[in-house]
C-alpha cells in the first residue's frame, strides 16, 4: 500500500517537472538576451522564489539553525551527505569514472558501518575524497547540451537538461531507500532546512556582492555547472585579451 502511494508521489513529482519544463519551452521563449532566452520568465520565477524564501524558508532555516546545536547539524548534514554518496556512486559508474565510483562507494561503506549510519563523516577524516555527481552531470558528460537557463519553482536555478534530470535524481537519491511516506517527507523537509541553513551565509554574501542578484546567480550557476561536469579539467578560462587596457 505504502509503496503504491510512494510511487504515485514520485510520478506526480516527475510529471510536474516535465510539465513545467514543457510550459517554459512552449511559452515565453524569446527574450532579448541570447544567453538567457527565458529571462523574463526566469526573473519572475526568481522573484516568486525570493518571496517564498523570505516568508517561509529563510525564517524556518534561521530558527532551525539557532535551535539546533552545531554537533547535531553536522550529524544531519553528514547523514544526508552519506545518502548522496550512494547516488554519486551510481552516477560515477554511468560516467565511466572508476576512481570517483570507488571513492564514493568506499565513503558510503565506511561512514555507514563505522560512522553510525552516516552521522559521522569518518571517510573525510580518512581523506577519502567526496565526489558529488548527479544525473544532470551524467547527461552533460554524455554530451547532452545544457540548454537554456531555467529557474524552477522553489528549487531555483537549473537548466533544461538538469530539470529533466531532476525527475531521475529525486527517486534515485534520498527517496529510494525510504518507503514510509511520512518519514520520507520529514526527511525531505529536514534536508531542505539543513541545506538552506548552510546557505544562509552564502545568501548574505550574494546580497552584498551582486549588483543584480538574478544575473549574478545565473552566471555563477552556469559557470559552476560547466565546471562540475568537466570536473575542473575544462579549458583554462579566465584569459583576458592583453589589448584590453
Amino acid at each position, binding site marked *: 500500500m505504502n509503496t503504491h502511494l510512494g510511487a504515485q508521489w514520485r510520478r506526480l513529482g516527475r510529471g510536474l517537472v516535465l510539465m513545467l519544463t514543457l510550459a517554459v519551452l512552449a511559452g515565453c521563449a524569446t527574450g532579448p538576451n541570447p544567453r538567457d532566452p527565458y529571462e523574463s520568465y526566469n526573473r519572475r520565477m526568481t522573484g516568486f522564489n525570493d518571496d517564498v524564501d523570505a516568508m517561509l524558508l529563510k525564517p524556518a532555516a534561521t530558527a532551525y539553525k539557532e535551535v539546533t546545536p552545531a554537533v547535531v547539524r553536522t550529524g544531519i548534514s553528514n547523514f544526508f*551527505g552519506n545518502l548522496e554518496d550512494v547516488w554519486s556512486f551510481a552516477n560515477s559508474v554511468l560516467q565511466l569514472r572508476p576512481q570517483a565510483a570507488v571513492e564514493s562507494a568506499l565513503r558510503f561503506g565506511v561512514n555507514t558501518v563505522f560512522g553510525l549510519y552516516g552521522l559521522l*563523516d569518518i571517510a*573525510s577524516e580518512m581523506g577519502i*575524497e*567526496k*565526489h*558529488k555527481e548527479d544525473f544532470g552531470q551524467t547527461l552533460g558528460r554524455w554530451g547532452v547540451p545544457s540548454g537554456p537557463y531555467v529557474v524552477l519553482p522553489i528549487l531555483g536555478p537549473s537548466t533544461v537538461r538538469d530539470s529533466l534530470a531532476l525527475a531521475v535524481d529525486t527517486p534515485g537519491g534520498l527517496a529510494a531507500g525510504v518507503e514510509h511516506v511520512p518519514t520520507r517527507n520529514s526527511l525531505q523537509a529536514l534536508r531542505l532546512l539543513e541545506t538552506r541553513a548552510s546557505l544562509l*551565509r552564502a545568501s*548574505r*554574501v550574494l546580497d*552584498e*556582492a*551582486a*549588483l*543584480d542578484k538574478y*544575473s*549574478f546567480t545565473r*552566471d*555563477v550557476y552556469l*559557470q*559552476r555547472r*560547466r*565546471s*562540475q561536469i568537466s570536473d*575542473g579539467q*575544462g579549458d*583554462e*578560462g*579566465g*584569459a*583576458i585579451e592583453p589589448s*584590453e*587596457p
Partner: protein
Amino acid sequence: MNRRAWAAGWARWVSVLALSSVAWVAPAQAEDEAPDAFIKRLATETLDVIRDDKAIAAGDMAKIVALVDTRIMPNVNFQRMTAAAVGPAWRQATPEQQKRLQDEFKTLLVRTYSGALAQVSDQTITVKPLRAAPTDTEVVVRTEVKGRGEPIQLDYRLEKTPGQGVGWKIYNLNVLGVWLVETYRSQFAQEINAKGVDGLIASLAERNRSNAKKG
C-alpha cells in the same frame, strides 16, 4: 710600505669588491619566483596570518582590509582586473572615473569576500603541477583548498611582470569553476548599458555604503 704586501692587500680588496658586486646583481634574477611556488607561498603565508590572528577570526574588518592591502594587493594587477570587468567602456572613461571604478570595485570585493577569509580554520592548500611552458607570459595556477567536505578548487590567472615584485601578478581568480572577472563583467555591462559609467560608479558606491552600514 712593503710593495708586495700592499699589492696583496689591494688584490684582496678588489676580489672582495668583485664578489660583492655579483651579490648586488644576482638578487634581481633570484626574485623572479616560479608562479606556482609564488602562489603556494602567498596562500600559505596568508592562511597562517589569518589563523594566528584572533581579531581577524572574530571578523575585524579593518584588520582584514589591512591584511589584504599589505599582502595581497601588491601581487594583483587590479587595474587590469577592473578594466577587464568594465569592458570596452573603460577606454572611454576618464582617468578619474577609472580610479573611482578601481576603488569602488576593490572595496566591494574586499568587504564581501573577507567574510570567507575570516572562516579559515584548518584548511590546507595544495598546488597542482604547473602546466605551462617556461616562456609563457600568462599562466593559470590551479590549487585546491582542502578542509572538511569537498575540496574547493581555487585557480589564479597570472601575468608575467619581469622586474616588478616577484615577477608575476594575479589578474583573475576562479573559485569552484567561477571566474571573478567574467562574473562581474556581465554585472557591470548591465549597469553601463542602463546608466553609463557614472551610473556604474554610483551603483557600486551605493552598494558599498549599504554594505558598510550592515557592518
